[in-house]
């Protein structure tokens, strides 16, 4: 496998790899040269794809879906990266370490994670903007109105026909019944007619010429957003409608749905309403990435087995904590917010104490490492838990607390936990 991977690496990168190995082994272990090369190529290819891929109004992609799909290779790539990082470790082999090296490596890891995260965001943003520019807001409004107005004449079955049209020519549909070709409220499209307006138009404008015009407008817009033209003439369609006959057209329902979907995707891009546009989502992503960064630092310091046990332990602690809080509420009638902070602090103190115990057996050293990992994972949430002592906390305050927490975790890691892991690793054990 390794030999096959070697074939993918260009000669100049192999030479650079060799130079770094011989001259900067600490930097070499970060694999930053591979990340920049392959990551850079990946980013460039994605940007080119996003920029150059032709778009059609009848086939508008959903950047949100692309974003999620792109996460898969990014996650796999990150997994491969972490695996490669773990193979050569200066500290684990008791090599010489220079001052400032730890900080340098942390910044490199942050840059790596940032580059990997940038890819799906950059691609999706560019694609979204490109989609939004496919049609002007005014044109889109006009097309949506045309579709909404003309849809009456294209029922898919007799039931829908009867639903919409009474014998005396009154039109039924209104806000609650009619599924329009777009949401009827939009931040960017201000000219979309409501179902009430559409109903009024149909009621008030009933001349043949007007109906034929509505049908014709519908056909044009339908062809644009579904990619399929309706070949029947407007007169034929109106004749069928007036005689309560259904238009024989294959997949009319699916084509309408396709048109709706394309318009929806257009609107999402125009309104910047995709998941990756959401500020909360971006904030959450940044926090998660910082968390991943912290976990990476921990992973590189400790044995993989201890790390995995800590993950399992964290899940157990969460589950048990939730159970205890529930019991407090159900049995004693005590609100969780009252006991959460003391429970959290007690647990955190317990893990920190365990991590610094003097007992020195092999098993206890594993437990110490696991305890410190759990303590490091809890630290980012310390400010948030502290704030919840006051029950009323806004979303902004919550994010601020989390940001503060992650900074606290990094500071404590660098000043204390990291050195403890190094010491634990080097110490002889009792058995």
């Amino acid at each position, binding site marked *: 496998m390794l030999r096959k991977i070697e074939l993918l690496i260009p000669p100049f990168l192999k030479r650079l790899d060799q130079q770094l*190995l*011989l001259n900067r082994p600490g930097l070499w272990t970060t694999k930053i040269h591979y990340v920049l090369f392959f990551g850079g190529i990946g980013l460039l290819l994605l940007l080119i794809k996003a920029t150059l891929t032709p778009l059609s109004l009848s086939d508008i992609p959903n950047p949100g879906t692309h974003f999620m799909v792109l996460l898969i290779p990014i996650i796999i790539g990150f997994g491969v990266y972490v695996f490669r990082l773990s193979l050569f470790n*200066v500290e684990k082999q008791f090599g010489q370490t220079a001052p400032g090296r730890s900080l340098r490596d942390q910044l490199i890891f942050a840059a790596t994670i940032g580059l990997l995260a940038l890819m799906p965001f950059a691609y999706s943003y560019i694609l979204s903007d490109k989609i939004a520019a496919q049609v002007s807001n005014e044109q889109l409004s006009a097309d949506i109105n045309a579709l909404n107005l003309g849809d009456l004449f294209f029922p898919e079955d007799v039931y829908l026909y009867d639903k919409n049209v009474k014998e005396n020519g009154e039109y039924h549909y209104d806000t609650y019944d009619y599924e329009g070709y777009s949401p009827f409220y939009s931040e960017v499209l201000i000219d979309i007619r409501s179902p009430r307006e559409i109903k009024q138009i149909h009621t008030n404008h009933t001349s043949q010429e007007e109906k034929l015009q509505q049908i014709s407008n519908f056909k044009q817009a339908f062809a644009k957003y579904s990619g399929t033209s309706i070949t029947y003439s407007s007169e034929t369609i109106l004749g069928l409608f007036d005689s309560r006959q259904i238009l024989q057209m294959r997949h009319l329902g699916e084509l309408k749905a396709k048109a709706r979907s394309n318009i929806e995707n257009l609107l999402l891009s125009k309104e910047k309403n995709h998941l990756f546009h959401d500020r909360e989502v971006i904030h959450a992503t940044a926090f998660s990435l910082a968390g991943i960064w912290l976990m990476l630092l921990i992973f590189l310091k400790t044995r993989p087995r201890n790390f995995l046990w800590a993950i399992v332990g964290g899940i157990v602690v969460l589950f048990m904590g939730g159970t205890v809080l529930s019991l407090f509420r159900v049995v004693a009638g005590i609100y969780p917010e009252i006991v959460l902070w003391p429970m959290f602090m007690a647990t955190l103190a317990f893990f920190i104490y365990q991590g610094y115990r003097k007992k020195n057996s092999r098993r206890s050293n594993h437990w110490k490492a696991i305890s410190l990992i759990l303590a490091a994972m809890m630290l980012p949430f310390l400010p948030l838990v502290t704030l919840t002592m006051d029950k009323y906390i806004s979303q902004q305050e919550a994010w601020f607390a989390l940001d503060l927490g992650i900074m606290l975790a990094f500071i404590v890691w660098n000043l204390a936990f990291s050195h403890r892991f190094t010491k634990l690793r080097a110490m*002889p054990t009792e058995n």
Partner: protein
Amino acid sequence: MNHENISERFEELRLLIDEQDLSRSSRRILDFFTDFPLPHNLKRAAITLRADYNAYALLDQASATSDKLDAMLMRAASLTNDISQHLLKQNYISETGEEAGHAIGGEFFHTKGRQQVKKGEAVFLGKNISKTFRTPKYTFQLPELDLELRLGEVTGIVGENGNGKTTLLRIVAGDLEADAGEMSYPAFQVPAGDWYRTKQHIAYIPQQLKPWQGFLKENLHFSAAIHGIRGQQNEEQVNFIIHRLGLTKYEEALWNEVSSGFKLRFTLARALVWKPLLLIIDEPLANLDINTQQIFLQDLRYLANSAQNPMAILVTSQHLHEVESIADNIIFMKNGEALYNGAMQDFGQDRAENLFEISTTATKTEMLGALQHLKGLHIEDAGQLKIIHVPVAYAANDVLNGLVSKQITVNYFRDISTSTLKLFRENVKKN
């Protein structure tokens, strides 16, 4: 054997060439380049000679002609002469081949952080080291033991399985904590308790080797680089070690592509490439064939004796004779007790009898009859062999002459009077 001087080395080299032992002579020529600042052209020639010999050793009988061997022997002799001339010019030796006034100094391979050290300097001083393991059913105790390891000396720990050899090794390597006793590493010049920096000077090769990731040569470069050997020097040192230990055939291999013998040799190379002050090896001979065992042990002896980078070597083995052939000090362990702990040359000096291990076609009665003239003789059974006990006044020749004169065929004969094998046999008898 110990603390050889330059003239002895040249004498040894000439003898090896006369005996057409190109395997050892090519290695010993390379060892000059470790200890003395010699020109690059000579070094290249020495490495080429070694590489040519390695290739010659792989040839089939038809291709491995004596002409080729003679040509290489001539090159070896010529190189030896050139080295001698160069050292004469540099005033390392005089015209008569005696040691000259020029002290061996200046580093040919500068290892960052490696202190200037002298042969005989104490690397490890342990006093009253003890360790106890307890389980519900069993208790094993390593009772108080003193141990001194010095640069330029090989210390062998021998004994049956389960006697505490590995326990003692792990304590010295800093892998296991002793229950009692004082330990120090004077030559390392690191503060007591700083195990990370202490382990930077110790190379520990356990019996169960952990697999390497990546290419084997890459690991060697990495090991050298993280111990301060950078750039061109790193390349040279790794290439030198590869040739010196006969690893050229597999330098581009992966771990699972080489035999267990080569795995051990690569592990040794990874340790030696950064010149530790203390090399600890647990049961290195277990997976090696007889020839490789000899080469391996010879290399350990040469490495310990290096004029420029002497090291203390601590090795455990059940191959008593092999270890005794290179060891300066021996510790014989039985039931966690050191039945002997001292210089190899002193062992058995105060003995009251000589012991000989023998296998013949004769019965015990026939042997007793043949040797009845040796007063104080007794013969004991030891499995497939017999042990002949005679007073110190009688030497090996006396026993052999007695047997041969009675037409007794001797299949195997070994003088174990000054070998720790004697302690094995004594303890077998007691058991």
